[in-house]
């Protein structure tokens, strides 16, 4: 898996590429912005080719470590494969999900400033 990180004001955009499964979950969990409880993250899933429930568990687990439980991690650009896993498990109900990253950043930025 490739993780690309860009900073957008106070919000980190973390883009995942490749496969998020039990093998790559530790790398995801230990990412600097993911692990930081105060950091609001937009997780860009466009290029995530494969996600299973080990990867899903890592995403949920990471969001529970965030100070801002409701929108410490915001999701964007799910492709069909990834969406299928979120839908079947109903984990989609735990997140704010956007079709494009710009909208996700806007949302995350507003929420962040509202809470400070």
């Amino acid at each position, binding site marked *: 898996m490739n993780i690309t990180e860009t900073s957008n004001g106070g919000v980190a955009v973390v883009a995942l590429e490749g496969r998020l*499964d039990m*093998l790559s979950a530790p790398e995801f969990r230990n990412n600097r912005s993911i692990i930081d409880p105060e950091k609001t993250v937009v997780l860009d899933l466009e290029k995530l080719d494969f996600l*299973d429930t080990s990867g899903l568990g890592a995403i949920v687990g990471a969001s529970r470590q965030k100070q801002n439980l409701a929108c410490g991690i915001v999701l964007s650009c799910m492709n069909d494969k990834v969406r299928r896993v979120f839908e079947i498990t109903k984990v989609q109900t735990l997140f704010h999900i956007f079709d494009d990253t710009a909208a996700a950043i806007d949302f995350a930025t507003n929420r962040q400033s509202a809470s400070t």
Partner: protein
Amino acid sequence: MSSIITLTLPGEIMFVRFASQTAASLARLLTDENPPASDGAQFVHDFELAVSEAFTNSVKYTGEHDALQMLTLTFEFQPRQLTVSVRDANPPFSIDRPAPDIEKGQIGGWGLMLISKVMDSVTYRRDGGSNILSMSKAI
């Protein structure tokens, strides 16, 4: 007519992708040979996903006393159906468990649930000291 393909490999997480991509290759071969009425790409993805879940569980739940074990994946390749069975020597388990309820805050326990949703049929049996989880999907 059906063909049987058997893959034996170490129960190490480093092989989880190899196992699931091998499953995807066979699923792709089946859809190439017998173009499905519905979505071929989804058939392949669902099959790959189910094997990733089952392989991961076999690695995760070896039980405390177990050293590294070999896992056996058996594929039954039929004209319009693919079945995979995953055999491990782990403690027995049940596939009849309630789906985790996310509204009650239950997190995790999604693997078997996902398998049952993406595959057409899932059976479990205990054979000697082994678990055999069989998963079938028709195209």
